[in-house]
């Protein structure tokens, strides 16, 4: 127990320190004026002028169109997998609906996987499609945040930066070097990194064992630094090759939190309002600690029905106890809970334990964090989501006390609030709308692995994960059907671009405005009080929308668990 608390404190402490270091570095990347040699080469190749400044519409269009081209390229390669090289196991191409789902999933930084890595993707596809899309998807998120923060920092200007410069620099100065270094640490800890596809072994008892290997470490490093989350293997970061030791587990966790937490510091630096940056960091942290406590408590307490069946779930010096169904022993309850809280906060979506087998309140945590979608959030977009709620807070508080809302010295008017509401509403409409549709769809029952409220949670989780661009799953659900592939694919695209583009428009609109000096009527936003107000608005606006759906899933399941109700 004590070691668990110390471990949690250590991780949060390291995260805070790394947020400062990375935050400073990102500030230099976003504000620097020089262009390194490989960058100048890339600009010439792309045929762009690095000195061009872009308004939000052009910046957003470049992002949207380049993402579309990359997604299409990934789709084509997946469809032609059988003709591509480095496919010694002779794996067939993905079907059209599955390839659409996969390409949409990875370009939107979701990494939902309706396929199983070992049996569906060649090593070529794992690299040229999956690793590629993980890099560009994550980089696009960071770049959107760069444009967004720049927009907030300017006044009377249409310019929010140059998309191509931001993209190239983020890739060359942040993503690639970090990933190479981290991949080598991962290999040292035991992750495979080879061009071979398999190794054959004869076990101690004489059975044949086929060990699937490949470029795993290079995949894992971008997967977590990029808050991507897709697994090389079907069982993702629970697989010993993807997450061999407790140390790699903690490195995964710190990698996921790295950029989302650092962006609050970068924001503070670029706006010369450090205090404001820390207030946003604190907002993230308060929510995160609350959710972590909830999932750890629920999983350590365990499942009373397992005790009745003969399992000893007591924590002792010889065992971690708790609900170990779908968990790995080297992580136990503490490291699994920390991972669960992190992967759905930072909307990564990799898993080191099977969320489908969590206790009801344990499963409530990932669902709730993805529904709020701004407890750290994914690379770039998490920060944008938080600002969306901060604007909403300023607006609501302003209305309550009868003052015109201002944020960072800019007046918040009807146009900004309309865009914010579009972004706020797209999220629940996609989640609840698609879930309702799936609940009515006749074939859905055949895809469920569990019945009762847990079966409903499997479907709700799928669309929440897709829309929040998370990618984790209640993986019992068989989502590889044309209906689920198509609708979840659409949910991912809606969740990504109906948040990112309206919020870029908000940034563009704020950049055009004059900065007005703070007056007596201005609500100070760099205070602990404002931090609590934002948490409150997130929970009320973000949370209450989903309460009826949560009541039908994990909440009623918890009551049934306590009364001993089971399902066949």
């Amino acid at each position, binding site marked *: 127990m004590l070691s668990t608390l110390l471990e949690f404190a250590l991780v949060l402490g390291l995260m805070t320190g790394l947020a400062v270091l990375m935050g400073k570095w990102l500030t230099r990347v976003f504000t620097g004026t020089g262009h390194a040699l490989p960058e100048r080469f890339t600009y010439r190749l792309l045929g762009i002028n690095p000195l061009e400044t872009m308004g939000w519409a052009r910046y957003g269009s470049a992002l949207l169109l380049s993402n579309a081209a990359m997604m299409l390229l990934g789709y084509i390669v997946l469809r032609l997998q059988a003709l591509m090289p480095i496919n010694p196991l002779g794996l067939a191409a993905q079907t059209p609906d599955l390839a659409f789902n996969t390409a949409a999933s990875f370009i939107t930084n979701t990494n939902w996987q309706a396929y199983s890595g070992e049996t569906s993707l060649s090593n070529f596809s794992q690299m040229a499609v999956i690793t590629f899309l993980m890099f560009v998807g994550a980089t696009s998120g960071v770049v959107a945040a760069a444009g967004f923060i720049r927009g907030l920092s300017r006044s009377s200007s249409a310019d929010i930066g140059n998309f191509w410069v931001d993209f190239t620099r983020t890739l060359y100065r942040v993503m690639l070097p970090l990933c190479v270094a981290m991949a080598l640490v991962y290999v040292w800890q035991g992750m495979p990194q080879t061009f071979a596809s398999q190794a054959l072994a004869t*076990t101690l008892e004489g059975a044949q064992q086929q060990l699937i290997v490949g470029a795993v470490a290079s995949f894992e490093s971008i997967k977590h630094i990029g808050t991507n989350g897709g697994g090389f293997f079907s069982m993702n970061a629970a697989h010993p090759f993807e997450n061999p030791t407790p140390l790699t*587990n903690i490195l995964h966790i710190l990698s996921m939190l790295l950029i989302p937490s650092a962006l609050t510091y970068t924001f503070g630096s670029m706006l010369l309002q450090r205090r404001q940056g820390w207030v946003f960091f604190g907002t993230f942290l308060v929510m995160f600690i609350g959710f972590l406590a909830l999932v750890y408590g629920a999983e350590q307490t*365990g499942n009373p029905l397992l005790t009745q069946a003969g399992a000893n779930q007591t924590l002792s010096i010889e065992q971690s106890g708790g609900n170990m169904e779908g968990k790995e*022993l080297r992580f136990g309850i503490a490291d699994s809970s920390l991972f669960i809280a992190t992967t759905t906060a930072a909307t990564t979506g990799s898993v080191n334990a099977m969320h489908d*087998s*969590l206790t009801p309140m344990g499963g409530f945590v990932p669902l709730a964090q993805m529904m709020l979608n701004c407890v750290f959030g994914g690379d770039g977009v998490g920060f944008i989501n938080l600002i969306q709620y901060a604007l909403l807070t300023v607006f609501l508080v302003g209305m309550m006390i009868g003052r015109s809302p201002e944020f960072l010295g800019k007046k918040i008017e009807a146009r900004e609030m309309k865009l914010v509401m579009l972004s706020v509403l797209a999220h629940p409409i996609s989640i609840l709308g698609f879930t309702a549709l799936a609940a009515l769809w006749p074939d859905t029952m055949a895809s469920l692995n569990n019945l009762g409220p847990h079966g409903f949670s499997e479907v709700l989780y799928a669309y929440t994960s897709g829309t929040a661009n998370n990618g984790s799953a209640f993986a019992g659900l068989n989502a590889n059907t044309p209906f689920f592939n198509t609708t979840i694919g659409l949910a991912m695209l809606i969740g990504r671009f109906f948040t990112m583009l309206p919020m870029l428009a908000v940034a563009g609109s704020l950049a055009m405005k004059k900065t007005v000096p703070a007056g007596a009527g201005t609500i100070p936003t760099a205070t602990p009080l404002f931090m609590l107000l934002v948490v409150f608005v997130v929970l009320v606006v973000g949370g209450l929308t989903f309460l009826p759906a949560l009541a039908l899933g994990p909440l009623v399941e918890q009551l049934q668990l306590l009364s001993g109700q089971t399902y066949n």
Partner: protein
Amino acid sequence: MTTQSIFKGLLRPVLVSAVFFMLLTGLAYPAFTTVAAQLLFPYQASGSLIERDGLVIGSALIGQNFTKPEYFQGRPSMTLGADPQDPSKSVSQPYNAGSSGASNLGPTSQKLLDQVAARAKAYRQDNGLPADAPVPVDAVTASASGLDPHISVANARLQLARVARLRHIPEADLLQLLNDHTAARTLGLLGEPRVNVLQLNLALDAHQPSIAVSE
């Protein structure tokens, strides 16, 4: 700003960036990392393969299916494999490293509870425990990967008497061997104390090779 000026000149960078960044991040990056990894850490980079008498017997990181009572047994595994009779069907094939998998059964699933009860009963019989003794949770629940190489110390200690009896090793000697193969928390904080079943069983065979051959 007009629509025309928003999209002007975007076609080339959009197309070139897709192809160029695919080559860079999808091929050059993993290729470079692979070469570096193979030079620096060739053993780990190839899958931490363990050889005995020139034969690859497994990976130090991946669990194996142990059914013989003179071996320590790993956690229940829910991995599937192709049915030898009908390859289009999947059947239970524990510790199939070609297809990691979990039960994904929820906490109120009767199927899960039946499985746990059956495993607890078998565990008590195998290890001579009273019929109502609680069994360590890791011994009766399936792991997430289906390839979990570890068991808890509690679980290993309950299996100790059985293995010692079948192998005619004094329990004190076996306890020593077990302690030598128990990994502590990293830095005293990270992860859980644990026993790698494959490595412990390898040590058992090395301790008393005749048993392994005769069985």
